[in-house]
């Protein structure tokens, strides 16, 4: 800490002021209870009353109201809350809800329901749609007998994703009609409409939300819930569902015809409407969708901008006549959307094809940025440029300069991954391989291992990519390759990669960090689990015997809190040749805490200052958020300490100065 920094004393015995941080965990637990209660309540909302709901909660509610029969997902931010709600309310209507092993399987289950005359939804984050893509691309060719809606939760600005792909592009690519809601209420209405459209035209329909819509809380008026039916009837129609080349060609002809019919016959006026803000203006025409519509509305109302706004809620296929008359009727036209210029490009094409010679402003001429999410300031600047008008700005005063502390996301106190990283880093150091061996990492909380001080992670592409890239690295360079993956990700996408490694005689040490849950998205079910929160039973898949069964001879398994033996084992494994695997198995601390705290068990460790030799190993190499130093004194924040005791092991604290408090 800098000399000028605030002095804070967390010594437990004389601890009176809590400096805020103390309540983090208590508060979290209280908060979790409230949220869980409200998730259950989504099934009991009274029709006609108003509720303050998250869009994801509203979508789950809409699934109940519209009698959706089947809902599947693989958790992923910003879509996760839809599943969390459905998981606890599905029984209200008898809906079949499933956390599938990955998005492709989730999609295929939903598709099979739609082929069995049922109503199905499947939802996932934007990159999850990539996993489902192979099947999704053929789904519109085959079509539906019931209904299928795919909800893609995109993440502009990448709040919790590896890229910000704009999945509206997929709607056109795969020939799927596309809805783009702006608010919780609209998401609710659109899901119902999308199901009907899917049934009417026998085609899968897509709905795209973005983080700012998925996690927007607003006013919702629920309707009454329906009744699900999970006994479908699949109609055998020989060739109809098999896109062998000769049939696929026929299907493509039918599909394009279907899209033309939708464009012609489907009444989109409710979703693509023109609003005359501040009495409207033929001078200014704004075309917008999703979250950007919200910013346009707010800025226009705040600064009394008279404009005609075409709000596009149904963005593929776009109805040509509506667009061309809007273009003709307005002097200045701007398209405001997030992320890619999807609507803008479409509109430019419509203008060109209809001989409308009008400049269309938007992303291509820099009025709106080509990347990241929009916001009120971006829209304000764009309108200021378009209207050649200066808007008022607020008096934001200058303040003195102060340091701004960094708060990167960090592994929780008690997290088993920290101990696993400590083991692996120590093992590599001892073997003289630290900074030499290649560590392809994967997607989960353990991606944070790349942060200081563990710095464990060299390359990451997507779910399961650790093992695939490891296959290559093991062939093309000399140092040991140590891919790292979590339990849920292992089953999600790693199995083909590991089979490939075995079959092709690659040389790698596969590390599986098995924390018994899908932790990063909030602790959803993982295939290793036998029972879920609601007490439902599953068949657990054992990672050890899976690896053994597909032919890895050297599979090790150890509790990462057994740090000393863990290092020994890891060193042994790294010195071997061929494909070998080591499983670090220990339950996520948040799950352990939930059980322990419910039984009233709290544990706590603190530093015995008489024994501490100030080696700083715990601070600098173990680095738990609960351990901090002040000058040379090391202390443990009693309110952050999880009581796991991993730091008290002599291998982390040689003088054994970290002691359990009774």
């Amino acid at each position: 800490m800098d000399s000028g920094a605030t002095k804070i004393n967390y010594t437990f015995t004389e601890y009176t002021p809590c400096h805020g941080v103390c309540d983090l965990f208590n508060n979290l637990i209280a908060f979790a209870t409230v949220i869980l209660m409200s998730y259950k309540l989504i099934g009991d909302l009274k029709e006609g009353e108003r509720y303050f709901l998250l869009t994801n909660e509203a979508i789950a509610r809409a699934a109940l109201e519209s009698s959706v029969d089947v809902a599947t997902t693989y958790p992923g931010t910003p879509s996760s809350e839809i599943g969390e709600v459905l998981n606890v309310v599905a029984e209200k209507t008898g809906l079949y809800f499933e956390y599938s092993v990955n998005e492709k399987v989730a999609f295929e289950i939903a598709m099979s329901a739609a082929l069995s005359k049922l109503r199905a939804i499947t939802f996932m984050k934007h990159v999850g749609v990539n996993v489902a893509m192979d099947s999704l691309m053929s789904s519109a060719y085959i079509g539906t007998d019931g209904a299928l809606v795919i909800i893609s939760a995109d993440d502009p600005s990448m709040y919790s994703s590896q890229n910000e792909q704009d999945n509206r592009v997929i709607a056109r690519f795969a020939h799927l009609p596309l809805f783009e809601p702006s608010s919780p209420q609209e998401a609710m209405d659109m899901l119902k409409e999308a199901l009907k459209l899917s049934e009417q035209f026998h085609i899968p329909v897509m709905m795209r939300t973005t983080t700012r819509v998925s996690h927007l809380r607003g006013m919702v008026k629920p309707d009454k819930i329906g009744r699900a039916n999970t006994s479908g009837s699949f109609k055998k129609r020989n060739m109809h569902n098999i896109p062998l080349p000769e049939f696929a060609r026929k299907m493509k002809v039918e599909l394009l015809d279907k899209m033309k019919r939708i464009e012609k016959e489907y009444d989109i006026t409710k979703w693509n409407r023109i609003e005359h803000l501040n009495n409207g203006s033929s001078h200014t025409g704004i075309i917008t969708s999703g979250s950007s519509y919200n910013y346009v509305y707010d800025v226009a109302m705040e600064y009394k901008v008279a404009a005609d706004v075409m709000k596009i809620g149904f963005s593929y296929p776009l109805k040509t006549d509506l667009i061309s008359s809007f273009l003709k009727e307005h002097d200045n036209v701007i398209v405001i959307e997030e992320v890619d210029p999807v609507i803008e490009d479409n509109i430019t094409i419509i203008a060109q094809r209809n001989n409308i010679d009008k400049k269309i402003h938007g992303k291509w001429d820099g009025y709106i940025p080509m990347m990241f999410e929009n916001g009120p300031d971006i829209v304000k600047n764009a309108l200021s440029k378009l209207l050649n008008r200066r808007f008022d700005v607020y008096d934001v005063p200058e303040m003195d300069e102060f340091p701004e502390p960094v708060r990167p996301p960090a592994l929780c106190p008690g997290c088993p991954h920290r101990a696993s990283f400590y083991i692996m880093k120590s093992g590599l150091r001892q073997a003289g391989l630290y900074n030499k061996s290649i560590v392809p990492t994967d997607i989960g909380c353990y991606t944070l291992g790349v942060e200081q001080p563990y710095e464990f992670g060299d390359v990451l592409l997507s779910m399961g990519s650790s093992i695939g890239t490891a296959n290559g690295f093991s062939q093309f360079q000399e140092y040991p390759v140590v891919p790292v993956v979590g339990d849920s990700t292992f089953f999600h996408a790693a199995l083909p990669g590991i089979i490939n490694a075995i079959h092709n005689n690659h040389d790698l040490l596969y590390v599986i960090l098995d924390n018994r849950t899908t932790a990063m998205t909030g602790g959803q079910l993982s295939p290793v689990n036998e029972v879920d929160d609601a007490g439902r039973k599953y068949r657990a898949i054992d990672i050890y015997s899976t690896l053994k069964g597909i032919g890895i001879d050297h599979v090790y398994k150890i509790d990462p809190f057994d740090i000393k033996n863990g290092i020994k084992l890891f060193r042994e494994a790294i010195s071997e040749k061929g494909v070998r695997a080591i499983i670090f198995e220990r339950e996520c601390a948040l799950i352990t805490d939930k059980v322990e705290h419910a039984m009233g068990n709290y544990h706590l460790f603190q530093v015995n200052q008489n024994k501490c030799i100030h080696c700083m190993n715990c601070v600098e190499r173990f680095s738990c958020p609960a351990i901090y130093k002040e000058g040379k004194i090391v202390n443990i924040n009693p309110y952050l300490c999880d009581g796991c005791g991993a730091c008290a092991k002599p291998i982390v604290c040689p003088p054994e100065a970290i002691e359990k408090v009774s």
Partner: protein
Amino acid sequence: MSTIKILFTGVGGQGIITSGVVLGEAAILENKNAVMSEVHGLAQRGGMVNVEMKIGDAKSPLIEEGASDIVVGMEPSETYRLRKRYNRNSSIIINTNPIVPFTTSIGLGSYPDVNNLLNSFKKVYNRLYLIDADLLARKAGNPVTASIVFVGAVSGLKEMETTIRKEAVIKAIENHFPSKLLDINLKAFYLGYEITRNRDNNVV
């Protein structure tokens, strides 16, 4: 119809979302519209958390630069970090208790001197309320109620009188919390409410 824009900032786990949800539910009882942005996902615990909220005729909760009417700063350095988001005349409520991240222990960044920081706030802002929300929360009976102390402090502000009445907020708290947690939360509400009520600023 004017819109009230509220910016909440602090550290994950402080109950920021709870504060916003209670105010939003109070808006429903007043037959008003409310929109709120939330942060979910990748390791929010101990990380920076901002929640933005508008009450009135608004579609997006996101607040443009400098436009916040009310700032709920649950942590001093986080309030400082967002200084471009509010203006000289915003009502700014700041918790005087710093949360020093562990990163300062491993040499990543540093935490400012909190007294100097708060003094700097006093120099430039016209409507500043410095409160020891954690102390008040403990007074109420449980440190967890700090987020409701802030709800109280927001409700006590003059500009809220015509937007959401105190009674609606109390009703929302009653609806939101299970009965065994109700008393301490109502107590926390009043402790916060009394601090800002009818005062132009209050420096504790």
